[in-house]
């Protein structure tokens, strides 16, 4: 994952006037705790249906919830990571509504006393602009079960003959992060979600996998004349199952609203679902059908009070967060925005890079190796860079051997591949196997003469102005020298010797 440039985010025009989009995002993030929010059942994805269940998460008569302390600590850490305020007093409330995947027909949630209030999510856009989106709150609740609609062709409710419910997910701790309507484009929306994901993954509080449903989000979208202070009528977009669909759904909705206004229509406040296949949003529910959830404090749970020292301890436990590291890489180390995100968004890669840079003298070359050769090997072998046999110290040696000209880049890549799987000291390998770069003009001339003699036709073509042949001839010199010749010197000597010799 990375910040990527996106098309279709051009300036918004309605009948010749400049408009801007106003977007707020509510996202639900499943916490990666050992056990569920209010019972001891395992919190894992992908088990056989209805195997991680008990009287509590099935809402059996007489069963009572007991809060998971670690889930509460996780949400507080998440808030602290964004500079949120942690109110000293919080409680759980019941949100009452009937739905078959909700065992108690109420959801334990938080109404007016969320665990965290405020805070700011900072991130870069792909074009290098920095953005800050204010958080309204993060609160904790329990997830519902999962309905599976059977008997229809597409797994949807419409046309299904019956529904099945898997309660493994019921009671999984879920944090709901609500943003202020500070987001101005679909690209920003995705960058905001990526920033949340980056932080939650770094904190270890969630896997944030949209494909497993551990991140689900809704967006409130409206448009207004640029610079206006009043908000336009909003619609709520649901059913966005990937970052890509978030971007497309929001982009699509902004266009739909702009077109509607252009035609002189009014925007209707309603809930719209994103249809992945039709690439459009479809009305799901109008405002009139809004629920009265009859929130009230859950009498089965006692209010939670935080002492200042609890908050201080959790603050101390915070790991190095991605945003300050990104800032350091981009603003201090002058790594590009895209490359900095590549480092941060690949587990362990930024650590590896920073350790290597500390030991080597060539930061740029280090960055190129880490993002190039090492990332390629990591992908090919499906191993994290940090768990390969190539230590930062070994990589630093290779970087320095290369930048000193002691080995050429081809040799460097070969050594990286070998040490990646076998380990060992690059300097010793170079020494032992005589892989040092041949930079002695006399020795290189020997290889060049051999090539000129063997490749008469190519030499002739070059003489006749076919410049591209030179690359081939350099390759031949490298081959003849078993990769040791200094490529720059080889080119120089090829040109000189061809020019100085007879046709």
């Amino acid at each position, binding site marked *: 994952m990375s910040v990527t440039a996106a098309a279709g985010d051009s300036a918004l025009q309605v009948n010749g006037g400049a408009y801007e989009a106003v977007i707020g995002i509510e996202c639900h993030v499943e916490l990666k705790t050992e056990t569920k929010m209010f019972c001891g059942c395992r919190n894992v994805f992908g088990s056989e249906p209805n195997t991680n269940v008990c*009287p509590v998460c*099935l*809402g*059996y*008569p*007489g*069963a*009572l*919830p*007991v*809060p998971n302390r670690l889930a509460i600590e996780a949400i507080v850490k998440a808030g602290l990571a964004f500079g949120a305020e942690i109110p000293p007093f919080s409680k759980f409330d*019941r949100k*009452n509504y*009937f739905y*078959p995947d909700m*065992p*108690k*027909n*109420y959801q334990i949630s938080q109404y007016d006393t969320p665990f965290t209030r405020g805070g700011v999510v900072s991130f870069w856009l792909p074009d290098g602009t920095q953005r800050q989106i204010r958080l309204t709150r993060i609160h904790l609740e329990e997830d519902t079960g999962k309905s599976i609609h059977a008997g229809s062709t597409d797994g949807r409710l419409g046309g299904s003959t019956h*529904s099945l*419910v898997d309660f493994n997910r019921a009671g999984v701790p879920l944090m709901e992060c609500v943003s202020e309507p500070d987001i101005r484009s679909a690209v920003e929306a995705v960058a905001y979600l990526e920033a949340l994901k980056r932080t939650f993954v770094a904190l270890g509080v969630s896997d944030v996998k949209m494909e497993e449903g551990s991140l689900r989000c809704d967006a409130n979208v409206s448009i207004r004349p640029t610079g206006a202070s009043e908000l336009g009528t909003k619609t709520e977009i649901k059913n966005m199952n990937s970052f890509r669909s978030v971007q497309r759904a929001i982009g699509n909705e902004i266009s739909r609203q702009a077109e509607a206004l252009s035609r002189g229509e009014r925007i209707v406040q309603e809930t719209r679902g994103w249809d992945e296949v039709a690439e459009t949003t479809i009305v799901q529910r109008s405002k009139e059908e809004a629920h*009265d959830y*009859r*929130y*009230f404090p859950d*009498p*089965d*749970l*006692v209010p939670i009070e935080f002492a200042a020292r609890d908050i201080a301890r959790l603050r101390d436990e915070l790991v190095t967060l991605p945003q300050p590291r990104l800032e350091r890489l981009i603003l201090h180390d002058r790594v590009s925005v895209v490359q900095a995100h590549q480092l941060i968004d690949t587990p362990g890669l930024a650590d590896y890079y920073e350790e290597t840079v500390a030991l080597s003298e060539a930061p740029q070359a280090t960055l190129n190796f880490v993002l190039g050769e090492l990332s390629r090997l990591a992908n090919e072998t499906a191993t994290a860079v940090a768990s390969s046999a190539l230590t930062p110290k070994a990589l630093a040696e290779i970087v320095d051997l290369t930048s000193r000209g002691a080995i050429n880049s081809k040799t460097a890549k070969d050594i990286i591949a070998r040490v990646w799987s076998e380990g060992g000291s690059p300097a010793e390998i170079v020494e032992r196997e005589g892989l040092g770069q041949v930079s002695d003009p006399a020795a290189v001339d020997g290889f060049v003469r051999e090539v000129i003699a063997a490749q008469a036709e190519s030499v002739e073509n070059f003489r006749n102005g076919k410049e591209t042949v030179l690359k081939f001839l350099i390759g031949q010199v490298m081959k003849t020298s078993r990769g040791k010749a200094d490529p720059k010197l080889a080119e120089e000597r090829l040109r000189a010797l061809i020019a100085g010799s007879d046709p």
Partner: protein
Amino acid sequence: MSDILDLGAREIARAVVAKKTSALEIAEDALARAHARDGAVGAYLTIVDDVAREQARRVDAALAKGANLPLAGVPVAIKDNMCLSGTRTTAASKILGNWVASYTATAVQRLLDAGAIPVGKANLDEFAMGSSCENSALGVTRNPWDLSRVPGGSSGGSAAAVASGTAAFALGSDTGGSIREPAAFCGVVGFKPTYGRVSRYGLIAFASSLDQIGPIAKSVEDCALVYEIIAGADPADATTVERPVERTLDAMRDDLKGLRVGIVREFDLAKLEPEVRAVYEQAYRDLERLGAELVEVALPTADYGVATYYLIAPAECSSNLARFDGMRYGLRVEGVDVGATYEATRAAGFGDEVKRRILIGTYALSSGYYDAYYVRAQKARTLIAADFNTAFEWCDVIACPAASSPAFEFNAKSDPVSMYLMDYYTIPMSLAGLPSLSVPCGYVTPSGSAKPLPLGLELTTPLFAERALLGVAYAYERGTRHAEKHCPPALEAVR
């Protein structure tokens, strides 16, 4: 032959531990007695023969290995809103159908671990909503003192089981008086501990912030014995308190010297029938005779108790009972779609009183009404609790009637509000979470009847002062010996 069953819980356990009899023998006797006697009284919805025998064998085996079980072989009736694994648990509602509990309530498990033998699941008002047991959808329970009268409620089956001698003690649950009122009506002792003392895990919720499990027994001492076993923090109930449970059995006192007993100014005995009033006046004099000093205390907000309670309890119940929807267990009446199935199931499954409270509670929590009803009721609750705190600056224990009348006849309270007012004396203590009990304090014989009906004196102490409360109640019980003066005719008939 089976006279041992007429002893108290403590004596039965002693006899079993001393190997004078076995848990299995007692279980067989108790089951036989329950089957023989319960036809007339109807205390039980289910008699759990197999579970009783199995538990008795386990107890005998444990005793053979030298286990020390304080309730060894003691027959107990369990209110049928508490889960006992493997037994039908109904809350006296049709909506649970024939739901069989898959787990055991913490309080019940603690009794089993102490060696008690469950005889059966006792009748109650549906979901514990009522004061006469008449709201049970599954059976009629009659008062053993007069079979034409109600046993009280909601723990009517529990109280009737103890009064009719088919269980040495029972577990009840009290939300606004549901242990104390039926105990008073049935001439036994009913004790509601401080809210948070006894785990509610496995108690089918009516109003979570008020529900509390407690014992109903033939004596204060037995209540203390059972209380010590069931009380204490439970990791499965977040509302239980971590506070250690003080011993109570060694707090039993012979007199009330040095004790200040508060008599509540607002609870004017003149409002009661003259014979009833006379019993309570005598009760207060008895407290004085035993050495207590009577002081008048004020509970100016107590009059708002019933109104406050009938907002908070229905609000909580409207949410607690939402889970009974026909989807996962219990009754299911199919409709054309999910919504219709919900409606058909709940329409068929809940009785009138339960529906009434769900409607009241849903209304009180609705947007636009929440502040006017629910929030205001919570404020009133706080004020009522504050009044008790002030009163307890002047006294150690508060004494008052447990109910305004003895047991009434079936269908005597057809108006819901007149039934709600039966809990006038018990609701304020519940709202304040206080430990409170009812102990027999005399009898009245209604005109045209030859049958004496028991009355109960309600005693209440500050939060967590169970030790003081049980000690005082013991001294009163011992100094008056009302329970020994009469016995229920239903029992005389079988003797």
